[in-house]
Structures are given as structure tokens and as C-alpha cells.
């Protein structure tokens, strides 16, 4: 079957309208999870169906789409989603963060600061920040309505009592505009500060769990913490071995059978850009030199 057998950006117009209405309500109530009638997509639940539906509802033919997974454009699922939209929407794609108008992501926020002309769409597995404390949806919904977040603070405090620190390193809960506690999707807590005051619109889609939520630009987002145990974004205590960046989130890569390691930027576009600009890390080679 040819791509022409499907509508622009795959979804039918009625489905897009339903998703668009949910996105608008999500934008109007930042951090609040809006139910939507998620459709079965031609990729499995848990593989970005929520993000894909939000992206499909937002795309215009003029968009330039970037898709990343773990910060990288070339991970297989990112490649697969990017090619899905290139085929079904015929839009331009890019790997350069600065050139993209819409970025779909799993598990990272790009290092390059986002702008007012961009939308960042997150793939979300479990949208409910209270879910692992209270498995029942009617209960967690009531907690949000009453702004009853004591359970979350108890959990974080128990961490401190047991470990001396909050033992959550990713998927770290945040409070939006002083009202809703929100799950930022499983980004490392290193990325949490980028959520707040971001010039770009941030949209979150959870397909299997049928929820959409949003952070409008310049929304205040605070990572939960305590006065005596303030939030700390963490990363490996190294510089990137390829580009030398000291302020980017790093992947740890095992490079030989003896278990030697190197640390490289998780954001592949960011690292490539720095190397092209002449930055060289401990194990890198200068740009232009033969590898």
C-alpha cells in the first residue's frame, strides 16, 4: 500500500481534532493530565505512540522535524519515527536542534537552548507522578484535585532518611506554577532545570495511558525538594571525551574487554556541533582530521 492511502500525518481528521482539543486544554491548565482517546498506532504502545499522536496533530507541511531517543538522532526508534513522518506527512527532517521547528524526544531535553519558534514533544510511559505511590487512578485524580501531595513528600523524605539523599535520578517529579505535581517523563534530573522558563512550548503525550499534558512557554517548573536537601541536577563528573564539553549530559561507554570507559555527550547533535567548531576532548580528533 502506498503512503497516499493515509491522510496527511497518518491520523484521520476526526482523531486529530480530538487530540488538538486535548492539547489546547492541557495548555490552558499547565501540568494537568487531560484524558484523550488514544488510538492504536502502527507502532507498539510504549514505543512513543503518545508522542507520535501529539506530533501528528501538530505538524504542518512547513515543519522541520527532529526526533531523538536518549538524546541521539540515530537510535533505531528515533530513526523509525522520523521515517514514519517523512513518509506519511512528507515533511522535512533535520538532526540540527537549532533548525528544527518540532522536536519529538524520548528521555532527553536537547542541550542547545530551545527558542520561541519550537515545540518539544515528549514521549511519556507513565504520566501519573503519583502512580507508584498509589496505583488507583480515581485516587490519584482526587489527590490532584485536592492538591494533596503529602504522599510524594513522604516518599522523598523516606529516601533522605534511608540514603541521606533523594534517591530519584530520572523521572524526577516537578511542581508546575505552584499547582500540579507533574511527571516530566523519564528525563535524567540533569534536564529538569531546562523545563522551567523554556521559551518553547512543551507537550507531553502518553498513548497507552491516554493522557496529554503541557507546559506553555515561560512556565515556572520547580523540582520537588526540601529546604535542607535542595534539588541537585546530577551528571557524570567528567568532560565529554570527544568534544570536551563540561556542561552536557554524558553517556558512559565501555570501550574494551578490560572495561575501560569513555564519556561522551548523550546529545549527538550538540557534540557534533562543538567538534565542528573546533572543540576537542581527551580522546577526540580535531575536526577535519582523518578518523
Amino acid at each position, binding site marked *: 500500500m502506498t503512503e497516499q492511502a493515509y491522510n496527511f500525518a497518518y491520523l484521520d481528521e476526526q482523531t*486529530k481534532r480530538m487530540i*488538538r482539543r486535548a492539547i489546547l*486544554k492541557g*495548555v*490552558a491548565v499547565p501540568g494537568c493530565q487531560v484524558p484523550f482517546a488514544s488510538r492504536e498506532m502502527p507502532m507498539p504502545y510504549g514505543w512513543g505512540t503518545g508522542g507520535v499522536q501529539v506530533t501528528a496533530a*501538530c505538524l504542518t507541511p512547513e515543519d522541520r522535524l527532529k526526533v531523538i531517543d536518549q538524546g541521539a538522532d540515530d537510535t533505531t526508534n528515533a530513526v523509525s519515527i522520523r521515517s514514519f513522518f517523512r513518509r506519511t506527512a512528507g515533511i522535512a527532517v533535520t538532526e540540527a536542534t537549532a533548525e528544527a521547528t518540532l522536536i519529538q524526544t524520548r528521555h532527553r531535553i536537547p542541550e542547545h537552548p530551545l527558542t520561541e519558534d519550537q515545540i518539544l514533544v515528549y514521549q511519556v510511559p507513565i504520566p501519573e507522578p503519583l502512580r507508584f505511590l498509589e496505583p488507583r487512578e480515581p485516587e490519584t485524580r482526587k489527590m490532584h484535585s485536592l492538591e494533596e501531595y503529602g504522599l510524594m513528600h513522604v516518599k522523598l523524605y523516606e529516601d533522605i532518611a534511608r540514603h541521606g539523599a533523594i534517591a530519584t535520578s530520572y523521572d524526577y517529579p516537578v511542581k508546575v506554577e505552584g499547582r*500540579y505535581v507533574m511527571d516530566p517523563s523519564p528525563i535524567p534530573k540533569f534536564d529538569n532545570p531546562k523545563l522551567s522558563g523554556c521559551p518553547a512550548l512543551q507537550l507531553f503525550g502518553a498513548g497507552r495511558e491516554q493522557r496529554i499534558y503541557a507546559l506553555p512557554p515561560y512556565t515556572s517548573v520547580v523540582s520537588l525538594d526540601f529546604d535542607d536537601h535542595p534539588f541537585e541536577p546530577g551528571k557524570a563528573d567528567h568532560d565529554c571525551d570527544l568534544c570536551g564539553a563540561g556542561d552536557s549530559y554524558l553517556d558512559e561507554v565501555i570501550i574494551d574487554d578490560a572495561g575501560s570507559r569513555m564519556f561522551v555527550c548523550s546529545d549527538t547533535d550538540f557534540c557534533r556541533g562543538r567538534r565542528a567548531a573546533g572543540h576537542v576532548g581527551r580522546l577526540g580528533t580535531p575536526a577535519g582530521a582523518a578518523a
Partner: protein
Amino acid sequence: MANPLTAETLGGGFDDAPVQSARAFRAALDAMARPGRIHVIAGARPPAPLSVAAGTLLLTLADGTTPVHLAGDIDCDALRGWITFHTAAPLVPAEAAVFAVGRWADLTPARRFAIGTPEYPDRAATLIVEMPVLQAEGPVLTGPGIRDRARLTLPDPEAFRANHALFPLGFDTFLTCGNRVAGLPRSTRVEDF
């Protein structure tokens, strides 16, 4: 009352719905995400007196699952027929509306509209207010989507202040004029001066 299937009723829709509605939605989304910014939104050619912007919003967002309330002179045969033909949205009183369209004077009292429930704040109406003028001047707006502050022509600042006081409940608003649209979600604070 049967609506005659006139050229006016049948015409004025999107020529290329997937693409035109995508562009219109992005304008509406950016308007709602950045209160105070005015965007061009077009594609629909509704019968008078509905504006191009309001007509385009309806074609983009309304369908058989979203009851629509038409207020004042918008509630005329030509527009009832046009909206029914193009969107299949049921036409309803204010209390049952998912979308409501009209001039502000015809939409008041605004407390008739759904403001959502504590468990489901999203189940709130969206008002599409037809404005005689729409400019980035007037009351000062702050809140999510606004970096420092914005200004926007508002029909009745006090009503929007009262609506914001209900947050996270409350209705959300598009202001339309000709082919231009601005958004005013319930999260926006309308400052006092």
C-alpha cells in the same frame, strides 16, 4: 426548521482540510500557549456575520462530538446551516456548550459556561469571542506563556479576573477579529492597573 442547502451553506469550507486545519491549529495553539500574541488564522469563508478567524477555529476544532452554542446575531439561519453542514456539531444552549461563539455582550453572563470539575478541569467550555478590535494594548497580562507581561484588548477585564480566580477550573477563550486570533486561557492573570 429545515436549512435550505444553499451555496452559502455548502461553500466556505476548507479546500484541503488536512493541511488547512493543521495550519489553523498551529495558529490557535500558539495563541493559547502565548496569551496576548495575535496570530493570523484563515481558511474558512463563513457566512456573515461570523469572522474568518472564528469560522476557521470551528472548522478546525468542532465536530459531531462537540456541542456548540451560537450567541446573539451569530445564531442565524445561515450560520446554523453552515456550521451544521461543515462540522455536524449539535447546536445547544450555553450550559451544554463545548464551544460558544458570539460577541461578548451576547455571551454574558459567562458563568453559564462549563468550567470543568475538580477531577476533570479539562471538561470546560472554550469561548470564541468576536471582537470589534483586537490589538496588543489594554490590560496587562501575566502568567504561563508570557515571559514578562503582555497587553491585549479585552471586552471585560473583571470577568476574566473572576474566571482566573477559579483556576484550575474556568473557561478558556479565543478572541477573534477578522482573520486574527488571540488566546486567553484561564491560567492568565489580568493585572489590576
